[in-house]
């Protein structure tokens, strides 16, 4: 377990970095449009058919998979160290590692499943 974790460290860091950059670039505008401007009526919400046609493009679905999955992996890596340092939970290391990376991996698999069905 210890050896596996050590050897995977650069990989988790690469996911953290890629997810940090992609979420920093894309999430503010997506959140503002979808979760604030549309519900508040500042811009028109697309109909069900229009929304489906947006995600019909394979490239759009590939982008959404990368965005959601890397955002979750970004959270996993950063939150893991926040728990260690902020709450002084170093002794719960294995549990935290499984919760963070495991959660992000389950979320990514579910994302792939949902996008596959569209």
């Amino acid at each position, binding site marked *: 377990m210890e050896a596996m974790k050590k050897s995977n460290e650069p990989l988790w860091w690469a996911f953290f970095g890629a*997810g*940090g*950059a992609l*979420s*920093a*670039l*894309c*999430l*503010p*505008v*997506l*959140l*503002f*449009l*979808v*979760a*604030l401007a*549309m*519900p*508040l009526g500042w*811009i028109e*919400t*697309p109909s*069900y058919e*229009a*929304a*489906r*046609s*947006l*995600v019909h493009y394979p490239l*759009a679905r590939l982008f*959404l998979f990368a*965005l*959601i999955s890397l*955002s*979750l992996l*970004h*959270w996993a890596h*950063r*939150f893991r*160290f*926040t728990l260690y340092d*902020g*709450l*002084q939970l170093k*002794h719960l290391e294995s549990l935290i590692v499984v919760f963070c990376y495991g959660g992000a991996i389950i*979320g990514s698999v*579910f*994302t792939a499943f*949902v*996008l596959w*069905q*569209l």
Partner: protein
Amino acid sequence: MMSHATRYRKYHPKLYRTRMPIFWWVRKWTNVHFITREMTSVFVAFFAIELLFLLRTLTLGPEAYGAFLVWLETPLALGLNAIAFLMILFHSITWFNLAPKALVIRVGEVRIPPIAIAGSNYVGWVVVSAALSWFILSA
């Protein structure tokens, strides 16, 4: 003669260690700034999951999609999303400002000034935001 391999203990519960209070980080502004930056990741994950559930309603049919849009209009959802928006903005700004410190680019002998790297991040942010807006608003 080495008859036994040296064994190390990872933790030394018998040694004296001062206990750190859980809220050690509120004493200084730099600590609050640091922990706020780290906590932005929770809101990044929150919105990623929200987006995922929105996409899932598109596989379930118009009723599920409509119900999700109604939920987005509730004060609870608007409040959570407003907080998430501010936290994600903080994530973007701290991320773009930190990049020049992690990324040292040299052309020949000359180091590209950090402000140029940060500046190109912000230009990229504007371009990506405009492209995504155009794509979504075309629906």
